[in-house]
């Protein structure tokens, strides 16, 4: 047998382009080897090995940040600054998920090494996902991510709520994949049909599809395909009207997995959408613009209004995440015309990563044996007895609410500026109403932790907090809180990265 493409690749040394992804895969396998090779008493070192390995890979990504941009693997992948940013983003979030899991998993009777293994595989797939410029590649990477997440979501399999979450995520995920696939099939089919100008047999490739769409800017079939593709991606980012799974799944999933879903999976969806909107769909802006505008407005309103009445913090943060998806969409819409808007998306995602993990970290520490059952009332007296945790929580929530001096404010500002530049004034008014509403529930959370009239932790919370949190987790939380403040004052490095200077 002869594989000319593979031989070509081997000769061109293209494998080096995806070294971070390959290293992650190898690290994932290495963890399984360690589990077999090490005696049982040493198994608790395996998560640490995973974290250290990921840190090394992160260093590798950062060291080669500005090298090797361009198309590779016959155009399946395109390495770019945005891709490098997202590699670092996914690594940062997987490191934080591993740190959270290290504290969270031992409370449950579940195997631990597999969890870390799957997180690594999913992370590698996310990296490929955001760099793919081909629908086949996109779908394969997306399925790898999704299947890994099916397992992770239902990881605490003795908890009925977790199983419910797993089932819901499976059904909804499968549906979204089906929609996406149907959309791709329509686009591929119409692009290859006889008699249309610009017909191409290579419509799986983004560039090929783009040139076809430019030649046929008003094809009904193509429009239907585009809407279906957007719908498939909208499931991932939890945008209206495909947000309905969010509260149940976020509540039932183990907290580290909730964080992974909320940050990394959502970011992956956004970058896929961003790439599609900027590189493939511009000829159909007459369609994509209104669809996304409606989606953004509805997402902001739904997320904020639904979050108002939540008492369970996991549902609350899930729904607040829905509203954040709406805010990010504000900058995705004009991204086709403005690099600054695309930069605003990246900046917002990083700000969201920092703020969300600060909150999820505190949630992990406060979680009891039933991970899905965390109420606002559990936070009563936290500020008095655990000022560090309360401070981190306040930094995270303040940043999510978009209040200076936290980094979330800069993120919101750039998004608003981008939306204003493109003239979406009505959408901005909706967004501002959303921010004001969101203040209510973020403030309610802060109030639970700080202003409660009975400033003492309940006996149950005392028991949960009796075991001090792991040092790595506390260091990570301190670093996140510090980052949210420092980047709020001095957006320097991140600002330069997103503005491309």
């Amino acid at each position, binding site marked *: 047998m002869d594989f000319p493409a593979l031989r070509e690749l081997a000769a061109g040394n293209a494998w080096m382009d995806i070294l971070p992804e390959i290293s992650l895969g190898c690290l994932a396998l290495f963890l399984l080897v360690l589990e077999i090779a090490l005696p049982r008493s040493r198994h608790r070192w395996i998560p640490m090995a995973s974290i250290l390995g990921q840190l090394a890979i992160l260093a590798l990504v950062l060291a080669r940040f500005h090298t090797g941009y361009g198309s590779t693997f016959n155009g399946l992948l395109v390495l770019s600054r945005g891709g490098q940013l997202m590699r670092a983003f996914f690594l940062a979030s997987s490191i934080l998920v591993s740190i959270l899991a290290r504290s969270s998993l031992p409370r449950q009777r579940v195997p631990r090494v597999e969890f870390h293994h799957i997180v690594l595989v999913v992370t590698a797939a996310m990296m490929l996902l955001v760099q793919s410029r081909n629908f086949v590649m996109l779908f394969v990477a997306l399925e790898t991510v999704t299947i890994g997440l099916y397992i992770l979501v239902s990881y605490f399999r003795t908890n009925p709520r977790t199983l419910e979450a797993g089932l819901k995520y499976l059904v909804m995920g499968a549906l979204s994949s089906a929609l996406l696939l149907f959309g791709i099939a329509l686009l591929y089919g119409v692009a290859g049909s006889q008699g249309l100008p610009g017909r191409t047999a290579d419509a799986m490739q983004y560039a090929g599809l783009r040139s076809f769409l430019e030649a046929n800017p008003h094809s009904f079939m193509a429009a239907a395909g585009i809407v279906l593709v957007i719908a498939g991606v909208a499931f991932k980012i939890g945008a209206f009207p495909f947000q309905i799974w969010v509260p149940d799944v976020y509540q039932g999933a183990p907290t580290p997995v909730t964080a992974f879903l909320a940050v990394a999976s959502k970011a992956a969806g956004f970058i896929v959408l961003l790439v599609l909107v900027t590189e493939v769909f511009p000829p159909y802006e007459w369609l994509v613009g209104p669809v996304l505008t409606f989606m953004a407005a509805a997402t902001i309103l739904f997320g904020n209004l639904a979050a108002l009445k939540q008492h369970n913090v996991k549902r609350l943060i899930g729904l607040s995440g829905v509203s954040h998806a709406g805010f990010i969409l504000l900058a995705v819409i004009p991204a086709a015309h403005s690099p*600054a808007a695309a930069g605003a998306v990246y900046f917002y995602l990083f700000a969201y990563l920092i703020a969300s993990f600060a909150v999820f970290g505190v949630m992990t520490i406060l979680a009891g044996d039933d991970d899905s059952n965390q109420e606002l009332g559990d936070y009563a007296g936290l500020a008095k007895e655990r000022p560090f945790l309360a*401070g981190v929580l306040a930094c995270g929530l*303040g940043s999510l609410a978009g*209040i*200076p*001096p936290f980094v979330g*404010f*800069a993120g919101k*500002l*750039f998004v*608003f*500026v981008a939306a*204003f*530049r493109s003239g979406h004034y009505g959408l*901005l*008014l909706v967004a*501002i109403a959303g*921010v*004001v509403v969101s*203040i*209510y529930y973020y*403030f309610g959370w*802060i*109030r639970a932790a*700080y*202003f409660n009239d009975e400033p003492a932790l309940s006996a149950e919370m005392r028991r949960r907090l009796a075991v001090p949190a792991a040092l790595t987790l506390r260091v990570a939380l301190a670093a996140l809180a510090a980052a949210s403040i420092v980047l709020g*004052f*001095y*957006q*320097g*490095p*991140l*600002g*330069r990265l997103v*503005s*491309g*200077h």
Partner: protein
Amino acid sequence: MSSPFFDPLLIAVAAPLCVAALIALGTPKRWVVKLAYAGFGVPALMALWVWWNFGAAAKESHGYAFLSSRSTGLDAFGIGLKLGLNGISLPLFVLAGLVGFAAGLYALQSKAERMKTYLLLLLVMLAGLMGTFASVDVFFFYFFHELALIPTFIMVGIWGGRDRTYAAMMMTIYLTLGAMLSLLGLIAIYVKSGASSFDIMVLRDTLASRPLGEVAQNHIFGLLLFGFGILVSLWPFHSWAPLGYGAAPSSAAMLHAGVLKKFGLYGLVQIALPLLPLGALHWGRDLAALAGLGNVLVIGFVTMAQRDLKQMVGYSSVMHMGYAFLGIAAGSLLGVSGVVMLMVGHGLSVALLFLLSTSVYQRTHTFDMGQMGGLAQKTPVLAWLFVAATFASIGLPGFANFWGELTIFLSLWYFSHWILVVALTGTVVSAVYGLRAAARVFFGPQSEALGRVCAAHPPSDLGWGERLPAFILIAALLFIGLWPRSFSAGINAALAVPPPAAAAAR
């Protein structure tokens, strides 16, 4: 003027922040108080130094002095930490320094629970205030305002009195709405001007050569008017203010009512008027009607009906903001310079009134004016200071407020006689409630309830911890009242540079 080694504006912002950081990182208890003195004192010293040297300092374009600029990595967006003062921001910067020092001293002598956190939040708030008025960059102007605003919410929520949770929530939502609307207006200026810079000086130059169209100006000014208006408790968006001030701990109320609330007016005077003169003209009548009838008359009568001392001070501060809005609505140099004077005078006097009413409460254990009376015999210094503060707030000659109100009234003469009549009625109203409050609390027969409280806790006169901040505030009020030129010269010079609304109308 500012050398790379001595930048008084940066020091004034950074010193409280550094002290706050040190406290947060766990300084031993005995150091906290000393550090806090430094944190509250340094900005006041810097403010006085800047005020003293302002006349001689080299002025750059638009009358700004002490300019310094630092990159925060967002040069591509036209954002940078640029600090500087002109004649409009200088008086407010000094006001922030003085009131901040007084509020700090008052907080240090109070026996608040969780003192460390309290001081920390006050210091952060002070840093935000100094930064707001020293910022030449609109991004940081807004940023520092929010930095000062957030601690207010937390302080009301933790150390507040009655209904503190409700008050904190209401303030948060109202003020966030105001802040978001004004942010939208600022973004609008940034984008529509085409300057791609948040620097006020650049924005002014750009808009002077290429003014915005009238429709755009009207819309943006409307956004800013209602955004900033909510922050300054423009009627009918004022209901957060009396409630919030009634619940807020005294030092937070002093800083918020005295200084932070002036942010909205300052934004209108420094940003909205010079950049959007046509918008100001368009909204002038409506603003005058809202503020004149709503803030001055309606709230004036509401204030008269108050029985609660702290609520009354809160409502009176809402009412006096009406005069400031009228000065802006008049749209003349005279009116605007009156607004700046009034901001300073009102900031000092309302801070003093909040301080004194808390001191009254500590002696009477109630804010209900019906259950007081005759306190002057037991606490003469407190009574004397309270009466002086009331005179200042009414606007009697000799105090800073007088010059502010007088210039505003003069400017209203050229704007609308009817509005002037309304405004003058307001002074009578404010004299009625101010003097009646002083009479009810300090003079006349002692009420039975107070008699019981006094028997249980014999009241003592003001201690030095309370006297010192009060003396600082009253001295500043008298100083400006007797020598207004010390502040008005700079204001006039700054206003004369960019032509405000009246000039553009011609």
